[in-house]
């Protein structure tokens, strides 16, 4: 196959897949703890906007990423207050977050930039000596911004935390049988709070990556369903970060294949191409739906001593 095409596919997979990876890893943590974040898209959007604004103003992409992280966490605080602490319905609050953040980021962007769309400079990359010289894949895989390597490292960090640490055991218990966790003397709400805030931080980072690295600009509604795709990846990943990586890359390909195809001169209507990721989601769900087992206490608020 055309090596240019392969390189383009890989680059595209990473550009589109990394935001998914961060966000889906985050959602994995929440889901393992029993919280479903329908508002994930909103967390991504706000993170994208916050990250973009700070990166644009300061000229530093690292400050931008930090801002994105904080922004995402701030939104997830809403889930913590309304769902974890007050025990309200997670779906409704998620929808409220989604609508509010879509409206808010659009409004803020309009107020701040009007109809101009400032561009960020490309983020400096770090190239791994030797590996980056490999033909075809070298420059795509091993010459990436530092945040990319952070993302890859996160796969292992999240995996370790979930399966080798006390916190991870508590998180998983909170998702499967919170009563058992409570009886063991652990504060279930505290554990879920930690989980949800981590999700917000990671989703914010995902949005930040999207705005700062992938696109270089902020456009209202720019996430275009990625938050929901991340939820699907988390569900299909069944709590295993490696599967989350694979899912993110596959959907990343689906999302970015348009560009790669154009490079090779293939002409297909953009509308059909845009359908691809969503078709992929439906197919994946239909094929693997039976096996995606979800934590038993997912989306159920916990209350001690409920009779």
């Amino acid at each position, binding site marked *: 196959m055309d090596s240019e095409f392969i390189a383009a596919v890989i680059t595209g997979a990473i550009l589109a897949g990394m935001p998914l990876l961060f966000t889906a890893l985050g959602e994995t943590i929440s889901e393992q703890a029993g919280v479903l974040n329908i508002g994930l898209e909103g967390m991504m959007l706000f993170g994208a906007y916050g990250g973009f604004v700070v990166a644009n103003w300061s000229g530093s992409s690292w400050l931008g990423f930090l801002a994105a992280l904080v922004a995402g966490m701030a939104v997830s605080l809403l889930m913590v207050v309304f769902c974890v602490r007050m025990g309200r319905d997670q779906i409704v609050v998620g929808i409220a977050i989604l609508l509010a953040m879509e409206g808010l980021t659009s409004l803020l962007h309009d107020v701040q930039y009007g109809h101009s769309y400032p561009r960020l400079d490309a983020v400096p990359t770090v190239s791994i000596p030797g590996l980056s010289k490999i033909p075809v894949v070298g420059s795509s895989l091993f010459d990436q911004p530092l945040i990319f390597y952070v993302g890859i490292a996160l796969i292992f960090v999240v995996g370790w935390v979930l399966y*080798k*640490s*006390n*916190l991870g*055991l*508590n998180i*998983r*218990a909170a998702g*499967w*049988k919170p*009563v*058992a*966790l*409570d*009886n*063991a*003397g*652990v*504060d279930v709400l505290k554990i879920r709070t930690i989980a949800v805030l981590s999700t917000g931080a990671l989703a914010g980072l995902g949005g930040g990556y999207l705005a700062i690295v992938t696109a270089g600009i902020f456009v209202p509604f720019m996430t275009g369903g990625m938050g929901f795709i991340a939820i699907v990846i988390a569900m299909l990943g069944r709590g295993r970060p490696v599967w989350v990586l694979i899912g993110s890359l596959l959907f990343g390909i689906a999302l970015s294949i348009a560009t790669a195809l154009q490079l090779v001169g293939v002409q297909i209507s953009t509308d059909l191409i845009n359908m691809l990721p969503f078709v992929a989601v439906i197919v994946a769900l239909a094929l693997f739906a039976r096996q995606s087992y979800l934590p038993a206490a997912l989306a159920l608020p916990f209350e*001690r*001593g409920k*009779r």
Partner: protein
Amino acid sequence: MAPVSHQGDEEGGRGLTTAPAHPGHQTGDDGSSRDVAIQLCGITKVFPGVRANDCVNLVVRRGEVHCLLGENGAGKSTLMNVLAGIYLPEEGTIRVDGRDCEISCPRDSIDLGIGMVHQHSSLIPNFTVLDNLMLGQGEGIRLSVKKAQGGLARLATMLGVEVDPNVEVAQLSLGQQQQVEIIKALWQGSKVLILDEPTSMLTPKGIEDLEHVLLHLKEEGLAVVFITHKLHEAFAIGDCVSVLRQGRLEGTIDNETMKRSAPAELQSMVVNLMFPGEAESLANVAELRDVSELGRTTRAARIGEPLLELAGVTVPGRHGEIGIEEPFSLVVHASEVVGVAGVDGNGQRPLAEAIAGQRHISAGDIKLAGTSMRRLSIGARQHLGLRYVTDDRLGEGIVGALSVAINMVSKRIGTKPFWIHGRTRPAAISAHARSLVDEYNIMTPTIETSAGSLSGGNIQKVVVARELAFDPKVVVFNKPTYGLDVKTTSAVRARVRELADAGGAGALVISTDLEELLFLCDRVAVLSRGRLMGVVENKPGAEQEIGALMIGGSHSE
């Protein structure tokens, strides 16, 4: 001499069997020293509409098994949940080792050395034994697997049991799971162990094993609180017995009295405490009597033609539960009550659901009055005359949000006279509901009240009333009296008998309660590990036979 002390006997109204100036080291009348581990003083716990505990005092001593006895709904679990930090009492104090303590969450309780094994499993089924034990132990970030393995080995030896740390809890038998829960409760060097209705899950052999474990624990100086609603158990296991009724402590029978009195005397003491003034009318209630005394009450036995036939039925279990693993064949005749005995989780739910049509069978056939039901839907089976009183009354038996009236007709939607051409006829529904509420003595403010707001006993009456309406041919009862108070229990059992005796229908009663089965049934099938171990005629000696069959199937209890 007052062998039994009631509330208000002692000065200050704090009815302890003996009233020390300050709690702490205590010399009992039998000469041995028994430290007071826990003292509950005047505990009151109120939920909207009900005083679950009303000014309860309790003293728990080391090296002793203190039985908390009372019928379902008396407030026993609530009281212990206060001690475990799950409920905050409105009034009262708790003293541990002589010091006043504040228990506002389970962590506080655990830190004070109190471990509780709840009625419903607190283990996470798809985690390993070790994972479950490590839960909540968090010292530092990393999971300390080695340390946990060591702790497990130590405690298992102490209890005299064997547990594989790396097996998934779901794979263990219920008896083994309970052992794990006891280990977990003792994990942090507990001094007090609370067991909430532990024997409901166990075979007779399992109960024996539990008794041995308790003996070990007593020797180690632990204080044990044992909650039960069965009299004979309280006497067999307890060193002293406290009786709760409707939230109040009716009295405590201390150790000396227990050792000194004859069984019949003790029994009548307790019955008077549990049911003041009603002892006569409750003479027949199974829970109050020793199992060996129960025989088959004489009935006009005119067993008719076969109504329900299970032939070689196997049913798959879901999510790791035991299904019906080997071909199961059983016949229920008209006017007959057949029981299915076994420890919970040995295939009961799959069996019941398979008959009802809620689950597919993987082999065999089920016939109702000669007609094969294998291809019939749930509704079609109901139409044929099959009824199913489920054990999950809140989860599927009723729709809690809808009214009592609607729940009465929920299985007849679209049928006359309640629906004509798809249109609802509210008047017909109300009339029907009212007549059932009267007939079954259901306590509800109105028929439009939401069914979920009724008490457990009344909800069960709604379910039974609904299932028994419109000429049932065969009714499957799954744990029909589980968790109910004595009055409702008697009422439900009477209905079962009436169904068979007067109605000419057949009844299949699935129950984990042996006394109940011996009381109700003509024959009892024994289910163990998803296999039919045998069918026993209900005559003297049946209990032993059933017990033997139950053990025969289980591998290591």
